[in-house]
């Protein structure tokens, strides 16, 4: 386009003549400022976590720690039980996302590939109603339900609502993906006498993998970060997840900011590491989830 532009429009110029270089750099300056605002808290937290005490943070809040003080990490992990919260979060997130994805995939398979069309249409619409109901509207009713089921203060109290809560969107996204898989393969498989269950496991599931990964990530992050249910459905310290454990941790060590920052580092790092590897997938998954929701 460049040469054409030069030939046809030699005289057009901006009224205010901004040097070309400034014009090119200016957006970067503005964006870098924004990036700095985003990243500053993290850098600040990492620095503070390596400082010995509030005194040192107060003395040079923005500087490097004078001496790297890793003791906070040991103390937070062992004494303050961050390790307990961490593993609770990890295994709840993984188990509930895996189960949720598999259930949703099975349902999506039945809805899109099996030949009970009218039933499928009804069930699909019925499941989509769930997308209209914002999560925390159900919060108290779910609390009462969990209490009546006698699983309050166990991990089931979180596992079940988390898994169920992710189902409508998961079914929607996976079904949308499965609809685009051509039916030729299955027809051949049916001729070969393959059963529906094997067809699902051997044929469709591997083909759907990209969608499954996306849905898994969205669900994983949702559970990893969930606060409201975790806060009220679990009161035993040993069962707490990172978001609620961290708040308890803060309230217990109100004055020790270096230690609190260490806790923040522990809870944020795994997510950031996953993000570093799967950023495209994560962005795609989270934005797709919200727009369709």
């Amino acid at each position: 386009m460049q040469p054409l532009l030069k030939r046809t429009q030699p005289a057009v110029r901006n009224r205010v003549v901004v040097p070309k270089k400034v014009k090119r750099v200016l957006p970067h300056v503005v964006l870098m400022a924004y990036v700095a605002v985003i990243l500053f808290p993290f850098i600040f937290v990492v620095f503070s976590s390596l400082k010995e005490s509030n005194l040192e943070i107060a003395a040079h809040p923005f500087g490097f720690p004078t001496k790297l003080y890793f003791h906070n990490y040991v103390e937070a992990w062992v004494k303050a039980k961050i390790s307990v919260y961490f593993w609770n979060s990890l295994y709840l997130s993984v188990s509930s996302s895996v189960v949720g994805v598999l259930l949703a995939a099975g349902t999506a398979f039945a809805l899109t590939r099996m030949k009970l069309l009218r039933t499928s249409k009804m069930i699909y619409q019925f499941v989509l109603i769930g997308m209209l109901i914002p999560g925390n509207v159900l919060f108290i009713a779910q609390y009462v339900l969990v209490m009546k089921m006698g699983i309050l203060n166990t991990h089931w109290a979180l596992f079940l609502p988390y898994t169920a809560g992710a189902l409508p969107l998961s079914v929607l996204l996976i079904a949308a993906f499965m609809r685009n898989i051509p039916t030729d393969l299955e027809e051949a498989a049916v001729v070969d006498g393959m059963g529906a269950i094997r067809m699902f496991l051997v044929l469709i599931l591997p083909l759907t993998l990209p969608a499954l990964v996306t849905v898994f990530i969205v669900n994983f992050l949702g559970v990893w970060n969930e606060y409201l249910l975790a806060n009220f459905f679990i009161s035993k310290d040993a069962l707490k997840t990172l978001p609620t454990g961290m708040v308890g941790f803060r309230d217990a060590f109100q004055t020790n900011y270096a230690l609190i920052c260490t806790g923040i580092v522990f809870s944020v790092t795994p997510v950031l590491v996953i993000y570093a590897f799967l950023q495209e997938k994560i962005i795609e998954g989270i934005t797709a989830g919200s727009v369709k929701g």
Partner: protein
Amino acid sequence: MKSTLKNPYVYAMFVLPTLLLYCLFFIYPMASSSFYAFTDWNGLEDYSFIGFDNFTTAFNDPDFRNAIVNNMYFILFSVFIQVPLIIFFAILIGQIKRFQGFYKTTVFIPSILSTSVIGILWGFIYEPEIGPLNKLLSVFGIDPIYWLADTKWAMVSVLAANAWQWMGFYIVLVLAAILAIPREVNEAAEIDGASGRQRALLITVPLIRPIISVVIMLSIAGAMRVVDIILVMTKGGPVGSTEVMASYLVNEAMGVDPNYGFGTAISLIIFAFALVLTALYQLTFGRNQGGND
């Protein structure tokens, strides 16, 4: 031979687990909410129907009306401050070529983190004695401000932290729409001598109106739901200055003296508000979206 995909038992095996979980944790709580909302149930077995009493009690409570107003602040802040900034940054990222990926991934980071951790992190930044914000301001001779403890500042502080968390997510949403605009449109305008600002305002913005509309709707829905960040940062205080409907619900219904009937009534009110606001938006501004096409 064909019947494997028509076998109702296999179909049920795929669909039933999902439907069961979904009905138990979505449909049943929704139904029971609508039931308890008209009772004075407090967790014990006996309760009585009290008609619309819970609803009138709520609307007669100045604290609840104050919470509604605070929710409106969230909406106004999102729509009139966040959304223009989101569009601005998205356009800026959209028109540069170098580092585009870097900006996109960086601004998105806060939206994958737990709100409770972000609340703790910002609590530290706002800390009056050793927090970095006051340290920074003290360079300019400004006295320490009690960001989260001062009724004048608490709301603004929470709004800023909330914006920090969510803006990147919306920027990426809008950016995707901007990058989907065919290059020719902008190139043609450039040849016709349109300046960068003209192209942004007269071409890009009208073309991305559908996504802006989505962003506004999501912001409204998000503002009605906001609760985690409030509970973690201020618990609704000081003196109710940051109380929103959902935190009011939690504080009133889940305290030492639980009142589930009242709580479910509040959740239904929040749900109704969200529905009415999005419907109103759809009918007024949302409808003429794409009118310029």
